[in-house]
């Protein structure tokens, strides 16, 4: 039973890490109705910006964080100006294709920056001051292993979700954003500044990418593989709903717990290594029952 609990808690905490990445997708989807293929690349470039500023230029945490955030805001604004603005009122598939191009561009730029800053492409260690080590008290009292780092990630995710929920539900920008997602032209016609909204949302997505990048980077180093964490977020989004911030968190918790339990308890019967695809199978099954996800908006189209 203790082991089951340990796997469950470990899975839930891993799920929080997936949710952090999924949140970035949700933001862009809410603003433009598009799956942002470049979110993984944004996580990588954000973490790399931080580690470059902190390591190469020796800046303290808050200065490096603030400047890395400025870099992400700049990328967000440039994305709106160069990539999205020419595509207003174009089919959503065009926007999606543009984000694929953006992903390749950001990945290339990130590697160029890394070569310039560090002269090689080796993973850069990133420390946030909290060791990824088990909490001794829990180990001694209950023989359950929980990492203090995972708890930090969960706390950060909680704060982020609360802040984003307030931002989108209680502010004018949040309401404008929903209108933009529904119909670009209609939103423009009632005076909603589409370009400003997109700029803001991409900047907020950059902020979320920075937080996710720092936490993932602290675990396994800042490196190209960070771009692949986006693959972990996709089943989370299918499950939680592409438009829901709460869904990203709940979806992450379900996917995290389910894939770890599956790996540990089902894996040995089928040769192991199933967690990579189990999350997708779960998401696909879920799609059959609830296509819009747990918290997604149900669309009813007039025929």
């Amino acid at each position: 039973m203790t082991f089951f609990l340990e796997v469950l808690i470990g899975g839930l905490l891993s799920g929080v890490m997936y949710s952090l990445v999924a949140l970035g997708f949700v933001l862009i989807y809410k603003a433009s109705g598009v799956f942002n293929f470049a979110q993984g690349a944004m996580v990588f470039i954000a973490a790399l910006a931080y580690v470059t500023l902190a390591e190469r230029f020796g800046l303290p945490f808050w200065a490096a964080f603030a400047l890395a955030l400025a870099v992400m805001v700049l990328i967000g604004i440039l994305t709106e100006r160069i990539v999205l603005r020419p595509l207003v009122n174009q089919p959503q598939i065009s926007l999606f294709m543009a984000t694929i191009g953006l992903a390749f561009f950001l990945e290339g730029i990130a590697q160029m920056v890394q070569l310039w800053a560090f002269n090689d492409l080796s993973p850069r260690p990133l420390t946030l001051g909290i060791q990824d080590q088990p909490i001794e008290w829990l180990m001694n009292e209950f023989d359950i292993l929980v990492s203090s780092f995972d708890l930090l990630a969960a706390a950060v995710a909680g704060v982020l979700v609360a802040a984003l929920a307030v931002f989108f539900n209680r502010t004018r920008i949040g309401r404008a954003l929903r209108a933009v997602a529904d119909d670009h032209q209609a939103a423009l016609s009632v005076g909603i500044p589409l370009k400003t909204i997109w700029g803001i949302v991409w900047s907020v997505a950059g902020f979320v990418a920075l937080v996710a990048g720092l936490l993932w980077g602290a675990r396994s180093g800042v490196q190209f593989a960070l771009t692949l964490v986006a693959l972990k977020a996709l089943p989370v989004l299918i499950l939680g709903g592409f438009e829901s911030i709460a869904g990203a968190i709940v979806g992450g918790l379900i996917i995290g717990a389910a894939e770890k339990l599956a790996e540990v308890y089902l894996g040995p019967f089928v040769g192991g290594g199933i967690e990579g695809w189990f999350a997708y199978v779960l998401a696909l099954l879920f799609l059959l029952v609830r296509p819009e996800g747990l918290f997604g908006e149900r669309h009813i189209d007039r025929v």
Partner: protein
Amino acid sequence: MKNTRLTIIGLLLAAALLAPATHAQQAGTQFIGITGYRVGPYGANGAAFFSGFIDYLHLVNERDGGVNGVKLSWEECETEYNNTKGVECYERLKTRSATGPTAIHPMSTGITYALIDKTAADRIPLISFGYGRTDSVDGRVFPWLFPLVSNYWDAATAIVKFIADREGGEARLARKKIVLLYHDSAYGKEPHPVLEAEAKKLRFELKMIPVPHPGNEQQAQWLQIRQFRPDWVIVWGWGVMTATSLSTAQKMGFPRDRMVGNWWAGSEIDTEAAGGAAAGYYAASLNLAGRDFPVVRDVQKHVLDKGKSQTPAKTVGSVLWNRGLAAAMMTVEAVRTAQAKLGKKPMTGAQVRWGIENLDIDAKRLNQLGFGGMVPPLEVSCTDHGGSGLVRFQQWDGRQWKAASEWVSGDRALVRRMVEDSAAKYAAEKGIRPGCLAAP
């Protein structure tokens, strides 16, 4: 808008200019096709290896004027460690020169498997230095494959022997628990048969746990390890997987000096990314790291100092860069061996194959080449396309790799028996009549 577009075009041009350089093929040169990778999740590892490989080719041209006067030329094609792209690169490179691409180094067990039939049909040798299909050591069945120096079964048995030594002898391994934590790919599955045989022979309990690509999340795997409570963990990792194994081991409270990696899980790239979590970790190695070798000094003097290469200073002398030098040296020596028999001109794939099969790089020759002490001697024959099977263990002290053993080998008799059995089965399946190829 116009300015923005100009900026984008400028950036794209800059990116194109920074792309990996090629040393274009020219008539009368020995062309070498390089299926390399410098981007993607395994790019850092590939960049170090292929930088070393190309730096050695530069050295041969700059210092020696080529191989017996035949200059080397090359072209690098990006595979991203992806099997499909690896095959595409191979197909492209084999048409680049009248003599073919000399010898292919895929640096990927998956790409090696994908090219087994193709290289045989095209009569192009494939060198898998420390990776690839292990039973291809039997050159009578696999005349075009050369898993040089040591293979994965040598590595696995050497690691078991290393663990046995630490436990006080092979007899003490009985009822011990060992986990193989492996990259869930052709590479990671390669040691399974020999480890199962070793577990049966030495009566230790073996649990094999896969890690899905790329391996940057290992919570479930390490919870299983924690439940199994092993005495040792063998890490068969690549890229981000190794660093994540080390940091997750720390998170789970598993001692790093009870973890042993193979040579692809034992470079500075792996340990530095794991930070303090890596201290104490062991790895088997094919070659030593360091700059205190004459060949490294020569590369510095004739290549790096002259600005012929863009290899970052930090990479020089690292585990994988030195391995790239050694891989290129073996290729060049194969060309030299073939030339000694067939004339001082560019060699075809079939001629280079003969050169590899007749390689004899003893300690004296290694010293002449400046590799003395970095890699073990190498003698290849038709029946043995591998080599010495020697490995050397090293331990990460928190800052650098330090030798933790002499050159040692594992259970060579067991490996040879299994190689012959497996190769014979393959020959029967494919209808191959085993035998040695004649000189071209």
